[in-house]
């Protein structure tokens, strides 16, 4: 019974923790402009994160080495430093977007301007990292994040024409959008589903929780069941926007517009639940990105790290995270639109993906690290196919960003 409970808890937190501000905003923007015609990208991206997270988790569980240790060891100091610089800056951008997301959601809940919420949100993130254990942190944000199921409830309550949504999913570029913007949002959605910090966090989390080979089955279940169900929530967000916003020509440019269909379908109660879900999801992702900032730097330089140590036993790790939160705070204090930061961050995430993906793919096949747990034939086929996809997406990301002026 206890075991069953642990398994269920793992899957549920994987679902509730799957979405972050990038997924929420990008799916709503895409739904309001393209309907479900980019749903195939969500499917592709979710399958990709399953392959990627599974490999990174396996490497961490079997060898005890987290992602950036592997990157440093495989690429050498020079290439790894270039990789670190790119990954760290993009992670910082994502961290900024997540803290902004918490503040925006709290603004909707309280009518207090989001800029006033930002320091409170950042302080709360730091406090949780400083004082709350890893398991509690993951379980609470994951379970409350499950309230995002409200998007799926809203979609059903809206009673959409499923045939029309299905048709959108099969059709390609809508007539009034240019192919460049269509492909730009394809890249953005892919980057939102497959963000590098998720892998830094997943593999370092495996070390934090002391995974061993015995935990592999459990972790595989979390990934293979939890992530796809989380992906369904992405589709529900896009679906809500497609049903309510697309016909009225409303293009999402703020979080309140993302939640408009929820309010219309389910009234105040559902709206409150979903806002709470957004706060939990963005708060959880803010914790994960902040920790990832510390993980990447500490693992590159071989510092002590982890929440299972007292902060004084991992001083450089904790000071790094404090500094990152302060920088994020500073960026948001300029008044830059957090939704805009989010849209840019997912595209850069897509561009940087091969940097983290390739070393993991190589090490997952290295018997020195993995012993008899090297990738099997099917996982390897999937892993290599995805490397091809990731490479294409990465090359296309920045040119599309420039060509479309961030999808305008």
């Amino acid at each position, binding site marked *: 019974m206890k075991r069953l409970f642990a398994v269920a808890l793992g899957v549920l937190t994987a679902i509730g923790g799957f979405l972050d501000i990038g997924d929420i905003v990008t799916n709503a923007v895409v739904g309001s402009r393209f309907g479900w015609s980019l749903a195939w990208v969500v499917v592709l991206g979710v399958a990709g994160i399953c392959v990627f997270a599974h490999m990174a988790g396996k490497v961490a569980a079997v*060898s*005890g*080495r987290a992602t950036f*240790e592997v990157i*440093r*060891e495989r690429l*050498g*100091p*020079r290439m*790894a*430093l270039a990789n670190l610089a790119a990954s760290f800056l993009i992670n910082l951008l994502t961290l900024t977007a997540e803290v902004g997301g918490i503040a925006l959601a709290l603004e909707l809940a309280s009518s207090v301007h989001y800029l006033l919420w930002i320091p409170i949100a950042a302080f709360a993130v730091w406090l949780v*990292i*400083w*004082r*709350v*254990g*890893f398991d*509690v942190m993951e379980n609470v944000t994951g379970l409350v994040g499950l309230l995002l199921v409200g998007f799926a409830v809203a979609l059903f309550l809206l009673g959409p024409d499923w045939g029309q949504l299905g048709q959108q999913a099969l059709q390609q570029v809508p007539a009034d959008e240019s192919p460049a913007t269509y492909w730009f949002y394809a890249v953005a959605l892919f980057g939102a589903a497959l963000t590098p910090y998720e892998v830094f966090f997943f593999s370092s989390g495996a070390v934090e929780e002391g995974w061993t080979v015995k935990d592999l089955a459990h972790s595989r279940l979390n990934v293979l069941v939890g992530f796809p169900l989380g992906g369904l929530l992405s589709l529900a967000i896009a679906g809500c926007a497609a049903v309510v916003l697309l016909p009225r020509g409303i293009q999402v440019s703020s979080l309140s517009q993302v939640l408009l269909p929820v309010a219309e379908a389910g009234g105040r109660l559902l709206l409150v639940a979903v806002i709470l879900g957004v706060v939990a999801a963005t708060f959880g992702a803010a914790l994960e990105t902040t920790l990832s900032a510390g993980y990447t730097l500490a*693992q*590159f*330089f*071989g*510092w*002590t*790290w982890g*929440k*299972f*140590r*007292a*902060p*004084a*036993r991992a*001083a*450089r790790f*904790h*000071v790094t995270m404090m500094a990152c939160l302060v920088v994020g705070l500073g960026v948001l204090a300029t008044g830059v639109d957090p939704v805009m930061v989010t849209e840019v961050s997912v595209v850069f995430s897509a561009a940087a993906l091969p940097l983290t993906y390739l070393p993991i793919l190589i090490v997952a096949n290295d018997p*020195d*690290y993995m012993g008899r747990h090297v990738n099997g034939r099917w996982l390897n086929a999937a892993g290599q196919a995805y490397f091809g996809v990731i490479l294409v997406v990465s090359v296309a990301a920045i040119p599309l960003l420039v060509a479309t002026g961030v999808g305008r």
Partner: protein
Amino acid sequence: MSRRLPTPPIPAGGRLLDARLSLLDRQVLDVDGEPVGVVDDLELSDPQAGVLPDDAVAPVVRHLVHGPVVLDRITGGRHPRAHFERIEWAAVAEIGPALRLAVGSSRVPVGWLEDWLARNVVARIPGGRHVPR
């Protein structure tokens, strides 16, 4: 490096390792599994200068070096040897995905920054000495 290197002798009862592949840039853990650093460089016994005769004595690894010395491998240049943070080769107990030492981390030199930050910043904030729960 166009000249092909001679095939290395197979050590009797030992393991043949490529130092670049299996030592450099690996994590170093102390006897309890605590990270103490990364192998940023290796300090070898001085090889003879010039073209080595065939019967020259092979250099041996004396120390693992870690800390800011990694910058030399990134940007070039050379740190003064006095600043090296060294771990004696004899302290290495196991070579795998990480190098495990036979000694505790208290016997390994760690840069001043960790100590300084721990004492002057982190430990002064309430809760800094407690494990998060």
